[in-house]
């Protein structure tokens, strides 16, 4: 099976360019170990023999962690696997390689100036989304059934939407980030992408658990969700986000939210307060912390940054401390407002992106008769939720032959189970799920 996966990657990845490195020898060794465990009568783990790949910001022993950059590509190979890879390996999953991404995870296109452009498997003239574009494209194309990505301001959610697959941003602190290159520690999450809710849940269950090496990782035991999927949306109080989340929305994105609401019998809407300020807070936190993380590279190697990230990193180093602390205060206030909403609702539905995957050639979109610049538009709904650190599953609405569009299924902190159950209900409806390969 792993030989077939490696052959498939070798034969088809050239069309979409999802991979930046293939760990063929390692994969074959790991497969042999799983076979040996089975032959010896040992349980090989819940993910035995399942191939997976990771965004190129997870450390892979013996491989330089490029993080989409020219600068880090020249660094020494990692001495140890990231914690998430170790957990998946311990469950029997087999690492196939590293996946393309935006430079240092900063952007929604995965049109990388150093490592190439990842194409959307549904239409190669369009972006796969970002920054975990390689992760989403590899899963959507069926090169691997599961992948890992990271999400700071939407970097799992946007590519999952554009490529028509399921994705999870867990609660902030639920899953260890040890061994992944930080972008914005206050907002960074890691999480899985998959073609089905069951696979997404199986990977999430393996990834959970405390880790003293990650300062923000919660000291909570794993709370598995796989056994809860059969309950689907039964008894859950669900509303659709209105106001800010119902504005600047293309007909395709609106149709996805409407289809989810109809399928679940949802009639109520709820206003999430001050979402424009929430987006601004996420923007400030991102700008300042990203610049601090890369300060040495900005000082010594500014010419080696790509044109789309260079000035965002540079400007972030000069923002006033007052803005940053206010953004962190706002985050506290905003989380409390959302906690109040979750007293009344278990799940809130919201769009992922205002539009389906745009073409690389397009720089604007027309929505409600207005021409809007695409790059700032794409993060509108995902970035506004970023400061709250909530668990969010993306479910892909596929109305053939149109492009896929995802819906955010948002739950209260550490209630991933609620988001997963609603995702399962949508998958069961037959309206949500990936297109056949």
């Amino acid at each position, binding site marked *: 099976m792993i030989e077939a996966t490696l052959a498939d990657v070798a034969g088809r990845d050239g069309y979409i360019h999802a991979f930046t490195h293939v760990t063929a020898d390692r994969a074959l060794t790991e497969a042999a170990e799983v076979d040996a465990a089975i032959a010896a009568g040992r349980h090989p783990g819940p993910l035995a023999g399942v191939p997976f790949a990771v965004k190129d910001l997870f450390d892979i022993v013996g491989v330089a962690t490029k993080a989409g950059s020219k600068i880090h590509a020249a660094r020494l190979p990692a001495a140890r696997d990231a914690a998430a890879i170790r957990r998946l390996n311990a469950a029997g999953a087999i690492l196939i390689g590293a996946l393309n991404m935006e430079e240092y995870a900063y952007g929604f296109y995965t049109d990388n100036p150093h490592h190439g452009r990842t194409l959307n498997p549904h239409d190669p003239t369009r972006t796969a989304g970002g920054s975990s574009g390689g992760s989403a494209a590899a899963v959507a194309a069926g090169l691997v059934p599961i992948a890992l990505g990271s999400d700071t301001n939407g970097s799992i959610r946007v590519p999952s939407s554009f490529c028509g697959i399921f994705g999870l941003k867990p609660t902030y602190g639920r899953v260890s980030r040890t061994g992944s290159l930080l972008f914005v520690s*206050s907002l960074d999450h890691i999480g899985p992408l998959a073609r089905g809710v069951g696979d997404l849940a199986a990977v999430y269950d393996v990834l959970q658990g405390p880790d003293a090496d990650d300062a923000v990782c919660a000291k909570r035991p794993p709370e598995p969700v796989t056994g809860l999927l059969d309950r689907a949306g039964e008894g859950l109080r669900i509303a659709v986000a209105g106001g800010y989340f119902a504005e600047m929305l293309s007909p395709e994105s609106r149709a996805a939210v409407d289809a989810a609401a109809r399928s679940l019998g949802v009639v109520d809407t709820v206003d999430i307060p*001050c979402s*424009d*300020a929430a*987006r*601004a*807070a996420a*923007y*400030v936190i991102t*700008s300042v912390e990203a610049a601090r993380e890369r*300060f040495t590279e*900005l*000082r010594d190697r*500014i010419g080696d940054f790509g044109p789309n990230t*260079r*000035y*965002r990193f*540079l*400007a*972030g*180093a*000069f*923002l006033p401390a007052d*803005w940053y*602390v*206010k*953004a*962190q*205060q*706002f*985050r*506290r*206030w905003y*989380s409390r407002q959302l906690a109040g909403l979750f007293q009344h609702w278990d799940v809130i539905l919201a769009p992922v992106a205002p539009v389906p995957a745009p073409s690389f050639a397009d720089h604007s979109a027309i929505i409600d008769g207005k021409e809007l610049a695409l790059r*700032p538009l794409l993060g509108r709904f995902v970035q506004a939720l970023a*400061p709250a650190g909530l668990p969010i599953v993306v479910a892909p609405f596929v109305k053939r032959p149109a492009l896929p569009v995802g819906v955010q299924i948002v739950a209260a902190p550490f209630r991933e189970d609620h988001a997963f159950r609603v995702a399962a209900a949508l998958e069961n409806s037959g309206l949500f799920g990936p297109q056949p390969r």
Partner: protein
Amino acid sequence: MSKPVDWDAYLEAMSAMIGLTIPADHREATIAQLKLNAEITQPLLAFDMPEGTNPAPVFKP
């Protein structure tokens, strides 16, 4: 912001303070990005923060 900002002077002073020199050929684009950041941040700056709101990060020794 009530008064116009002299971004060139701001960048010059801050560069010296944080030890990050902006090469001449990157200066104009960096100032343009700073102006954009200020515009994007307006909804946050306009938000009336309730007194005593703790910043989100909590340090536990």
